[in-house]
C-alpha cells in the first residue's frame, strides 16, 4: 500500500469519530521579551469541526496556531495535537506531525522560483516521497480542479493574482490530505467578491477532505460562512466563545463590536 493510500485510509477511519479532540491547548502562556502575548489560553478542536479565532491585530492569534504546529514553543501549558504533546516532540516526530497538519499562510507563501506545478509537487516528493509521475500528475490535477485553477498549472507565482495565489496556497496545503488545517487570515488583502469565493472554497474543501480547521480572520463574512464555533481573543486571553449567531448577540460590547 502506498503512503498516499495509507494517509487516505487513516483520514477516512478517523473521520468517523466526530467527538475525538484533535487539538487541545491548556493554559498556554507565551511571551516575547517582556511582552506577554498569550496569557492563559485554552481551547479544543474536535474532529471535523471548524473553529474561527477572532481578535484585533497583535493579540497573539497567529502565535497560538504557530504553537499548534510547533513553529513556536509555549512558555507554559500544554499543546496536544492528535493526542501528542507538541513541545515534547523531536525533529522526526515534528516532521511526521506536520504531514498531518496543514498551514495556510496569509500571503499564500508560494515558492516564487517554482511554477504552480512544482509548488504542488514539492510536498508530495519531499514529504510523502511520491516519485511516480502519473500519481503526481493525478494529484496535481485533482487539487487544481478542486480550487478551479487547472489552467494555471504552468504559470509562475508572479503571474497570478492575489486570489489565485491563495487558491494555489490552499491547493498546496491540501494536496498532502492533512487531518487538520490551520488558516492564517485566508481572506486578508482580497476584494469582497474574491474573499467570499475563498471562504466558499474553504468550506467546500472542508467537506471534500473532511478536515478539522482553525481559522484566524478579521473577515466577519468569512467567519459567518465557515465557522461552527467562534472564539474571541483579546489581550492574550479568550474572552468569548460560541456560535457566530450567539456571539453576534453577546452582552459584551467588545465582542459585539466585531459584528458591526
Amino acid at each position, binding site marked *: 500500500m502506498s503512503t498516499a493510500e495509507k494517509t487516505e485510509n487513516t483520514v477516512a477511519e478517523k473521520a468517523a469519530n466526530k467527538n475525538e479532540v484533535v487539538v487541545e491547548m491548556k493554559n498556554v502562556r507565551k511571551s516575547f521579551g517582556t511582552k506577554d502575548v498569550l496569557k492563559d489560553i485554552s481551547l479544543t478542536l474536535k474532529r471535523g469541526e471548524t473553529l474561527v479565532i477572532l481578535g484585533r491585530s497583535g493579540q497573539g492569534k497567529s502565535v497560538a496556531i504557530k504553537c499548534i504546529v510547533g*513553529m513556536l514553543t509555549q512558555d507554559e501549558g500544554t499543546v496536544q495535537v492528535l493526542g501528542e504533546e507538541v513541545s515534547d516532540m523531536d525533529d522526526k516526530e515534528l516532521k*511526521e506531525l506536520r504531514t498531518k497538519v*496543514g*498551514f495556510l499562510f496569509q500571503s499564500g*507563501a508560494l515558492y516564487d522560483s517554482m511554477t504552480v506545478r512544482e509548488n504542488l509537487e*514539492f*510536498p508530495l516528493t519531499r*514529504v510523502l516521497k511520491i516519485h511516480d509521475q502519473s500519481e503526481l500528475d493525478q494529484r496535481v490535477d485533482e487539487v487544481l480542479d478542486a480550487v478551479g485553477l487547472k489552467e494555471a498549472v504552468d504559470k509562475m507565482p508572479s503571474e497570478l493574482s492575489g486570489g489565485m495565489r491563495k487558491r494555489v496556497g490552499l491547493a498546496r*496545503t491540501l494536496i*498532502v490530505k492533512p487531518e487538520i488545517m490551520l488558516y492564517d487570515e485566508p481572506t486578508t488583502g482580497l476584494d469582497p467578491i474574491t474573499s467570499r469565493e475563498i471562504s466558499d472554497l474553504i468550506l467546500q474543501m472542508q467537506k471534500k477532505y473532511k478536515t478539522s480547521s482553525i481559522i484566524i480572520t478579521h473577515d466577519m463574512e468569512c467567519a459567518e460562512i465557515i465557522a461552527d464555533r467562534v472564539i474571541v481573543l483579546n489581550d492574550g486571553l479568550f474572552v468569548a466563545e460560541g456560535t457566530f449567531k450567539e456571539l453576534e448577540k453577546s452582552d459584551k460590547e467588545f465582542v459585539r463590536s466585531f459584528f458591526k
Partner: protein
Amino acid sequence: MAEQAIPAYKRWLEETGEQVNFFTSFFRNVFTGGFEWSEFVRQCYEIGYKSFTLVGITSFIMGVVLTLQSRPTLVKFGASSMLPLMVCVSIVREIGPVITAIICAGKISSGIGAELGSMKVTEQIDAMDVSGANPMQYLVVTRILATTLMIPLLTLMGDVLGLFGGFLAVSLADHTSWTLYFAKCVNSIGFSDLLPAFVKTIFFGFAVGFVGCYKGYNSNSGTESVGRAANSAVVSASLWIFFLDVVAVQVTQLLFY
C-alpha cells in the same frame, strides 16, 4: 558606556552561538536524509556558469594590469625575463584565489543573502518547514556545496585567463612567444604553490556560501532586512576571505617552507 557594552557583548555571543548552530545543522543535514541533486545542479549552474564571464574578464584584466605595472620595475633591474615567473606566482598563489573569492562574495553571497532573506520575509521558508519538508537541505546545503565546488573551479579558470592577460601585456612590449611564456610559467610554479592555493579556494567557497545562507536564512521580517542581509553577507564574506587567507598563508609557510 559599560551599560552599552554589555548588550553589544551579549549580542555578539548570541550571534556566534547562532552561527555555530547553523554550522552544525548544515553538517548534520549534509550527512542525513536525501540529497537534493537537481537543486544542487541548478545552483552550480547559477553560481558557476553565471559568474564565468565576470570572473573571466576581471581575471584577464588583472593579469594585464599586473604585468604592465610590474614590467618597468623589473626592466630597471634588468630582470624582465623574470616577468612570467612573477606574474604566474602572484596570480596562482594570491591574486587569482582572492580576487575570484571577493568577486563571488559580492555577486554570489549577496545574491544568496537577498534570495533567502526574501524567502524568509515572505514566509516561504516557514511554509517549507511547516509542510514537513527540510528547508536546510533544499536551500542551504545545496547552495553551500555549490559555492564550495564552483569557486575553486572559477579560480582555476580565472588563473588561466589571468596568465593569458599577462601574456598579452608582455607581447605588447616584447615579442615573446606563447610557448616560451607558458613554459616559463609552468617551470616557475610547483606543487607547494598550486596545492595550498587550490585548498584555500575551497574554504573561500564555503565561506561565501555559508555567510550568504546564514544572513539570508536568519533575516528578520520586513523588506528592510532583505537589503541588510545582502549587504552584511558581502561584508562578512569579504572579511572571512581575508581572515582565511591569512590563516592559509601561515599554514602554507609551516607545511611547505
